[in-house]
Every structure is written in structure tokens, then in C-alpha cells.
């Protein structure tokens, strides 16, 4: 089982994604959801997930700030960056900081997002 941490304050999106992943491959993933940046950072250290689905806009600590902190402490867990809109500036900053990929939540289908997650987990 691959451990996935979803850090997103949009609880509906978080739940939909979790259920969609489980429905796609019932025993492939162990999924943990947290809803703000501080919790996310704490959970990363505790859980050591195989990958993180990280929203850019988060309360308390933004996704970009979390990426920076991960870089500083040499953590190399792959990150799939989530944004509400195609905010090119923030996306390119995330890629600069080592994000493996990004999803534009309002544009991408669940199927597409799951495929991206699987691609990252395969590497």
C-alpha cells in the first residue's frame, strides 16, 4: 500500500479524491487527509508518505512555504501541487521548488488526477 497525504482545505475535494482513489483501486492506497499547512507539515514528518497532494493556497502555511521547508530540510517526497486556477506564476514557482507535477483542480477530471498520482507513485 502506498501512503498518500492530501493537504487541502477544500474538504469536499479532499473527500472526493480519497473516495475516487479507493474506488479505482480498493487496496492500493493508504490515504490521510489534513486541512491546513501546519498540520500538513507535521503529518509529513510523522507519516513519511510516498507522495503528497499539496494545495497551493492553504491556511496558516501555504503549499509553496511547505515546499520550501521540505527543501531546506532535504526531504525528497514527491509532491503533486494542486491549484484552483491555472496560476502560472505559482505553478512555475512550485516546479522550481521541485514539485513533480501540478493539477488545476477546476479543469482536471478525477480520472486525470488519479492517473497523475499513479505516474508519480510508479517512479
Amino acid at each position: 500500500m502506498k501512503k498518500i497525504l492530501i493537504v487541502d482545505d477544500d474538504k469536499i475535494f479532499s473527500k472526493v479524491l480519497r473516495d475516487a482513489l479507493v474506488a479505482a483501486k480498493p487496496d492500493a492506497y493508504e490515504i490521510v487527509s489534513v486541512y491546513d499547512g501546519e498540520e500538513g507539515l507535521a503529518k509529513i514528518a510523522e507519516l513519511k508518505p510516498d507522495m503528497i497532494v499539496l494545495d497551493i493556497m492553504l491556511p496558516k502555511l501555504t503549499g509553496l512555504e511547505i515546499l520550501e521547508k521540505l527543501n531546506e530540510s532535504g526531504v525528497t517526497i514527491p509532491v503533486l501541487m494542486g491549484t484552483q486556477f491555472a496560476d502560472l506564476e505559482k505553478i512555475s514557482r512550485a516546479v522550481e521548488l521541485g514539485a513533480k507535477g501540478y493539477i488545476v483542480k477546476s479543469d482536471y477530471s478525477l480520472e486525470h488526477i488519479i492517473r497523475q498520482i499513479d505516474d508519480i507513485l510508479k517512479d
Partner: protein
Amino acid sequence: MNGIAIVVTLVGIAALGGGAILYVRARKLAAVARASDDDVRHRMYELTILKEVGDRIGYSLNVEKIANVIVGSLNQFIEYGAASFMLITPEKIIFKADLDKPVSHAFLDDIKVRMRLALNALLDRDLSQTPLEETITGTAMVDGMNEPVRSFFNIPLVISGNIAGLLTVAHTKDGLYKEKEMTMLYKIVGQASQAVTRLEEVITVERGKLQAMVESMADGVLMTDTDSRVLVANHALRNIVSTPDGRDVTIFDVIDACAGMFDVRGRLEESIKQGRTFVADNINLAGSIYQIFLFPVKGANAGGGTVGGGVIFRDITRERAAEKMREDFTSMMVHELRSPLDSIKKIGELLRTPSIRDDKAAYDEYMGMVYQSASNMLELVNDLLDVAKLESGKFEVRKKPASIRELIEERVKFFETPAHDATLRLASSVDEHIPHAILFDQMRTAQVLSNLLSNAIKFTPPGGQVTTRAFLHAHGADINQEAALAGIPLPLSEKDPRFGTLQNSVVVAVTDNGEGISPENQERMFNKFEQFSTSIRAGEKKGTGLGLVIVKGIIETQGGIVGVISQEGAGSTFYFTIAV
């Protein structure tokens, strides 16, 4: 008959006598006429001279030019060997002499000595060491002549009450300058002095007006000459470039203030050279944002060349902040609308998965989410429509007689479930003296109460209490006393002077014992764009903030007032009034 003859004789004598008297009178009149003829001629002559001098002087403020014109006109009516003037400038004395007949060097030297002495006396200071710049025109000087100054007189040149110099006529002949000539010269010089004085006064007043205007401008204003020397720098500019009081602003102050942000000198030189205006936008100087205009300053005369450059610094910090707020507001609204839409879309996609669709519990939960997302969106769209109506002045309320007590009780009951879920207590108390029916828009006022109650519930920690109170305010009575009697813990009038003039009203107040709101945020809460962008209340519970904007709109359209009083850590009271 005799009688008649006597009468005739008498008449004859009388006629003779009368004739003699008439003759004498006529002689006298003729003499007077001749004298006045001379006078008229003289006056006409005077006027001609004065007019000519006046015309030649024009509107000049150049005293040297004026003195030149006067000296140049003198030979038309006065005989002189030398007509000369001395003008005092800070560095030197300008001396010019026009010679009408050959004179000796000694003659001229004597004039100079006499003039300096006269100036010393007039000014009460020693000018004997001040350098003299002299120009001699007219007839050549002859050496060896020994004709001393025999006639001589000085007229001081007075401009705006100050001695500017001296005008002198001198001759080798004796007894030349009599009263007539002297009066004439005084008139000419006096008129020229007066004209210049008046012109200077006008210019001083006009310059004063212009200076006062430039000085009081909110924009920073700078003017330099073509060599970047600062000619004008107003108060606002001094502040922008932080020049200490008592020191003149230099171009270097301005360059330093713009360092790294804007090449003010380079741009100004370019502007002067090319005769073009430049505008630089969004220049950040010491925390404020400026729009900077640079333009060439042309001379005042028609066809005048560029005499320098002007720079205007306009502080656009507030405009930019407002612009940013509008942009933030728009992107926030878009986000708030897209989020629930996206949720609905994703749920729709997920529910196509048979395992989820067929799981009754999961299906119901997702349907609940769809319902909630759609409701949130609808509420937001309605709020946006209300705000749009408020802004366009098309917002309407329909006042009908209704019971405020019933409305409060109904709304409080409605919010009991969410309050219970948040482990809060809801209470209400309505003064029994409030008339049963007062005029207000029941639906809109219900919306106001709902908004205030749901906010209070949202921002009060578990275990807290939210109390809705209504009491009567009598015009002119102390609102704080009335509020205290009703049980409201904070003085309502503390920051709201409107209570001083409020008519008889019902005051409705929703009090919580939540975290409270900082004074700064209390003022911003009811403004669109302002209060939503920062989390006015701590934590994640951010809203669009449109609710309070609409609350304010509804209450003010009904003719009431709305406000908040709060202490951080001690809770808040939101209040509104309805006239009775």
C-alpha cells in the same frame, strides 16, 4: 419831459460807466486768458512728454531701461550738459550719462561725486567704495575745458518705497533749473516710479497667489532651471524628499530620494532637451507609490524657449490600494463561485463510479454536499445582486406595519439548532414598551437579523452566549443609559455620534461574548472590498464579507443606523435602529 430826459441821461451815464467797467474786465480777462493759454500749452506739452515716456517704458520692470528712457527724453524740454543716473545693485553702481554739449572730465567727475554723496545721504550708508560701472553717451568729452558745474539737481528714483537710484541733470550755465523744470522732472520720474511700483505690487500679489497655490498643493512640485538648479520646491515635495526644514531643496535631495527607483535627473534632462512630457507610473518611494510627471517649462513670453524643467510627484498609494482591493475582491468572488461549482462537477464525476453510486450512505452524503454547494453559491449570487443594487441606488425596501418582537423571536428560534450544534446559548429580551406594530421591511430586516445571528454563532467559541435585545431610544436621551438598562455591557455612543441626533427609535442589538474585533477592523467591517480580504476575525472562518455590507444597506435604506462596538476578548455588540 424833463423827467424823461433825466432818466435817459442817467441811463446814458450808467451805460458809459458800465462800458468802462466792461472794458477793464475784458482787459483783465484777456490777460488771464493769455496766461492760461500758456498754462494749457505747457500742460499739453507735459502730457505729451509724460505719455511718450510712459509709452516707451511700457510695462517694464527693468529700472535701468526706464531710467534710460527718461534720460533719453529729457533733451526735448530741458537744457542740460549732462543728464545721468545712478542705480544701486547689490554688487555695483550703474552710472550712465548722456552728454548734450561738450563737457570736461572734471565736470563729469564732479557730477559723480555729487551723486554718490546724495545717495550716501539718502540711504544713510557709505557707497564710496562700491564699484562703478559707467557708460557715457552723446557728445564727446573735451579736455582742457574748465567749465564747472553751475546748475545741478537730483531726483531720487523710488520704487516700492525704496531708493533705487538717482537721476541728475547738470549744466555749466548758471541758474538754469527753475521750478517749472524741476516740477516737470519730478512728475516724469514720479510717474515712472509709480508705474513700476504698481506693477511690482500686482506681480507680488499674483506671484503670492501662485506661490500659495503651489505651496498648498498635495502633489510634490519641483521646478529647476536648465542646469538642474532648483527654483521651486513646495512643501509636499520637501516631505517626499525629506529635506530638513531651514535648508533649500537641491536636485541631489530629489536624486537621493529616487535612488534605485527612478532616474529623475536623466529623465528631466531628456524632457528639457526634447521638449517632451514624460509620465512614470508606480514609482515606490519610501513606502508610498507615486506617479511622476516631467515636463519642460517654457518662458512666459510668446515663442520663449525652455527655461527649465518641472516635476510633479502625485501620491497614488490609495488609488493603487483601492485598485488592488477591487482586483482581490473580484478574484475572491470568482473563487467563491468556482469552488462550489467545481465540487458539484467532481461529485457528479465520482457518482458515475458504480461502487459509490450503489453505496446508499456515500450517495446520500454526496447529495448533501451537492445541495450545500449549490445553496452556498445561490446565497452568494443573491448577495452580489443585492450589493449591485445598493451600489446603483436601486435597492428598495418595502415598509409595512409589523411586530419587531415577533420577528426577533422567530429568528432566534430559527437559529437555535445551529447554536445548539455549536454548543452556544441563544437568548432574547424585547422591551415590552415597544409598540406592537412599527414600520419596517419585514423580509429585509429578517435578513439583517439572520446575518448578525449567524455571524455571532460562527465567531463565538463553544460554551458562549448570543443575546438579542431590543429597547426604545427616546430622541435626546442618553443612549448608553438606555442600553445599560437593557443589559448591554458596552457604551454604544462611544464611537457613534449619530446617536446624538437619532429620532425616537427601536434599537436592536446582537451581543456575543466571543473573541471581539479590533478597533481598526470595526471601522472596516461594513465596507465592501475592505473587510473581506484580511481575516478580520481570527481563524479560518473567513466569509465574503458581503453580508455586513448588505446589512448596512438595508438598515440605512430604511432610515436607520447600524454599527458595532466591541472589545477584543470581551465580545461584540452589533446594533441597528428602526424609527418609530
